[in-house]
């Protein structure tokens, strides 16, 4: 028997199984997010980042999410952003600044005992919306807040 061919077949079959499992959504979001999603953070395309980190580019607007950020940020290098989600079983909060070179800013995996609440500080290249995506019960919700930036914070 050709052993090399055998090894190749076994390996490709194993890889295929993982790919099928991932595409069928069998891997729960927590397992997918267990490692830092490099592809999502390194891409300059918003939709690619969204797909990588949230698993979808579609989201429903929700009034149960509040994004708190200043109306005018004098320094785009430090913009304090708070996200409060009243959606039960909030699993993750992901923040995007669409105008930044790297649109994905931060993603937070929320444990069962943890509130749907997080405060962080982000960089903003220029005036833009800060968009928060909340994943809960397999669905994705979003809310945004416009922030006027007088001095960009991404160098250059």
């Amino acid at each position, binding site marked *: 028997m050709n052993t090399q061919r055998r090894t190749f077949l076994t390996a490709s079959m194993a890889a295929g199984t993982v790919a099928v499992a991932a595409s069928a959504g069998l891997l729960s979001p927590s397992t997918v997010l267990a490692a830092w*999603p490099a592809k999502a953070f390194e891409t300059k395309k918003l939709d690619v980042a969204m797909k990588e980190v949230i698993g979808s580019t579609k989201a429903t607007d929700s009034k149960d999410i509040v994004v708190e950020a200043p109306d005018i940020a004098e320094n785009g290098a430090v913009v304090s952003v708070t996200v409060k989600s009243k959606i039960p079983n909030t699993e993750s909060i992901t923040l995007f600044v669409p105008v930044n070179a790297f649109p994905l800013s931060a993603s937070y*995996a929320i444990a069962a005992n943890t509130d749907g609440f997080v405060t962080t500080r982000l960089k903003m290249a220029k005036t833009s919306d800060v968009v928060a995506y909340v994943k809960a019960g397999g669905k994705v919700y979003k809310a945004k807040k416009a922030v006027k930036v007088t001095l960009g914070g991404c160098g250059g």
Partner: protein
Amino acid sequence: MKIRAWVDGGKATVKAIIFHPMETGLRKDKASGKTIPPHYITEVKCEHNGKSVLDCFWGPGVSKNPFVSFRFKGAKSGDKLKVSWVDNKGGKGTKEAKIG
């Protein structure tokens, strides 16, 4: 790193600040004109008595000396809260604090 954690009304509030340059890789050194290589925190794990309460995944869009605040249930005064981080260059740090 600085961590403050306290219990109020059955919930613990945590505020943490990590000292880190958070370089995007887009900035140029004004003197030499060379691009400063990216150097930023990628992952922060927050654990309460050994159990994960919050996992942060960060990119270069998080501010220098990043700050994070969150709340969780089931903590009492004297419990341990551990925050550990890793960056894209393999740097890391850990600090443990007592919940007040």
